[in-house]
């Protein structure tokens, strides 16, 4: 084995260890979800596994929370992408007078921590009778995440080399066609990453969900909150519900990575 090969293997092992260490707290959380409460502390790796926590946590109630979370997250993500990409496109390739100012305005709308405006938002929801509705959640989340989509997609759009677009226009390609035939494949990775991020932000959003929902529109973080502290040992149960909650984004992340790889093999831009 050449020295180069050995170096490569060592590097790969190093990366494995590093990533595993980074991931360790979550791994430990998943492990803990299978422990009986009395064996959670002190920390240990050998224990008697049990499904009791999952049995307690996965009661029929959880379906409503999951349904709400899924609906709200998916619809918000779609809405943000559908509304955000055209805006981003217009800013980068369009003929706006001062695109940078518009950018900056979008960015400035995300500056305020959600917690700072909870009471005003609660008041607005209350007086428009939109408390405890999925619609209001989707509205709030979209408003919060569209700027993020615009900002991220802008950087990916900026990377598309002008020469290709110009060549296509010279060849008689229409704007829409060049968008779908050229821009989308090149920025696919970026757009997928962006969609994934928005989905995760919405899926995990906790504070607005707790304050603006009651029974009908409650999402999964609200259910999880009831396990966050108890007058009794709760860490194994919390780990269990958290593992369940983390599964959809994790699976999505896995799928998104497949497309990342595909983007790589599709070849980078010809210089």
């Amino acid at each position, binding site marked *: 084995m050449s020295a180069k090969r050995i170096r490569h293997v060592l590097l790969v092992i190093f990366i494995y260890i590093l990533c595993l260490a980074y991931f360790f707290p979550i791994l430990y959380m998943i492990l803990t979800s299978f422990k009986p409460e*009395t064996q959670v502390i002190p920390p240990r790796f050998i224990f008697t596994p049990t499904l009791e926590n999952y049995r307690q946590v996965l009661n029929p109630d959880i379906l409503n929370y999951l349904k709400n979370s899924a609906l709200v997250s998916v619809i918000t993500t779609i809405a943000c992408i559908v509304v955000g990409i055209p805006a981003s496109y217009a800013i980068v390739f369009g003929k706006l007078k001062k695109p940078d100012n518009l950018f900056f305005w979008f960015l400035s709308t995300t500056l305020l921590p959600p917690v700072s405006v909870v*009471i005003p938002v609660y008041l607005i929801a209350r007086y428009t009778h939109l408390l405890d509705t999925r619609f209001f959640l989707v509205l709030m989340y979209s408003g919060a995440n569209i700027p993020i989509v615009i900002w991220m997609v802008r950087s990916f759009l900026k990377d598309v080399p002008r020469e290709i677009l110009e060549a296509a226009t010279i060849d008689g390609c229409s704007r829409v066609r060049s968008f779908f035939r050229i821009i989308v494949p090149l920025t696919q990775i970026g757009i997928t990453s962006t969609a994934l991020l928005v989905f995760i932000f919405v899926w995990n959003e906790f504070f607005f969900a707790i304050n603006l929902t009651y029974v009908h529109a409650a999402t999964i973080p609200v259910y999880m909150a009831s396990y966050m502290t108890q007058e009794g040992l709760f860490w194994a149960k919390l780990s269990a519900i958290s593992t369940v909650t983390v599964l959809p984004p994790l699976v999505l992340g896995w799928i998104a990575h497949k497309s990342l790889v595909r983007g790589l093999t599709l070849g980078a831009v010809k210089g």
Partner: protein
Amino acid sequence: MRKLAFLALCLVAVAGFVSAGGSKESATAKQPLVLATVNNPDMIIMQKYAPKFTEKTGIAVNFVVMPENQLRQKVTEDVALGAGKFDIVTIGTYDTPFWGKNKWIDPLDPLFQKMSAADRDAYDVADLMPPIKSALSFDNQLYALPFYGESSMLYYRKDVMEKAGITVPEHPTWQQIYDIAKKVNDPSKDFYGIVLRGLPGWGENMAVFDTMINTFGARWYNMKWEPQFNTPQMRQAWEFYKKILTDAGEPGPSTVGFTEGLALMTTGKAAMWYDATVAAGALNAAGSSVAGKIGYAFAPTVKTTYSGWLWSWALAIESASKQKEAAFKFLTWATSKDYINLIGQNVGWGQIPPGTRVSTYKNPQYLAAAPFAGITLQSIENAPYDQPTVDPVPYKGVQYVAIPEFQGLGTKVSQQLAAYLTGQKSLDDALATCQQDALQVAQQGGYLKQ
């Protein structure tokens, strides 16, 4: 053409928005009651047995379960900002009086009048423990029915004390507890003399520490509402708390609340623990390595006779509720003698909601399952709710000051305590900050007449 395509996309997005709205339930005759509650074991049991109530009355109940802090915030939002989406709320002895005063919850006496004589006798309001009843009243009107009640007591390891040849007196003083803790403290073996809450929060470390403030002879305000953080007694209390934790207590106290204390005790890492009486059940439950080894004593004192706190989680009806009669039915069901029997028979007598009715403490089955019942009963009955301190004070409440601003003030002071305990602040700084904060509250709340 392209514009149309884009418009179509937008319409799809809008349709998505709208469909997400969905489920507006059609107004049916009987809507389920919406109940907000904490995620304590007793409440979880209540949630599990709620279908029995639905069987009996045909009224369904939707539970919204949250941790205590969130519950209080959410329910306060709901009542104060007028949304009125909860029918029944779980509130404590702290909130009840001024919520009643603000007309956020309904007085219950009129509803009791509407009951049939037979039902009223079966419910037996007189059976509810007097101190708890009075803590849940305002202006002599009962506003909430107690679901469970507690005081505080000292737990200790009988086996450890026997081995060390120590007898723990039934009415110990804090000095005695300090000496005992020091004797059995053994940090090299991961074993601590005593566990005390240090987690910031007006209901966390402040609950425990406030009882110490009271019994050391200090107070938050004098009769003129002048803050009293600069008195020698207050200083003594603070110094003592730090001393006992440093010399014989658990490490990292600012991360130890009720649950962590329970965990330390049940994994056999501590010899003593001063905390809520409701912990007794958990300490003796299956899976606890110290079940059966626990001895009980009254809350330690210095200058007062009884220093245990008084707390109850109770059910109340929101004034904005549209189903008050149905809600009242649930209230009386969940706090009735029948309910206690139900839980006792189906779950176990060690797990019934304690501390609400005198009859519970005359029940032989309960007394057999709960060796700590005597001390709990006496602690609740003697909790100095109306006059908690040595010198007279203009406020009520043992482990809190019964003013609405205490949520904020108590939290700030608890943070100063944590800062002092962890060495981030000197005692002088911490006390000065507390004094300043307490003064601001008294002034802005209109208590202190300038």
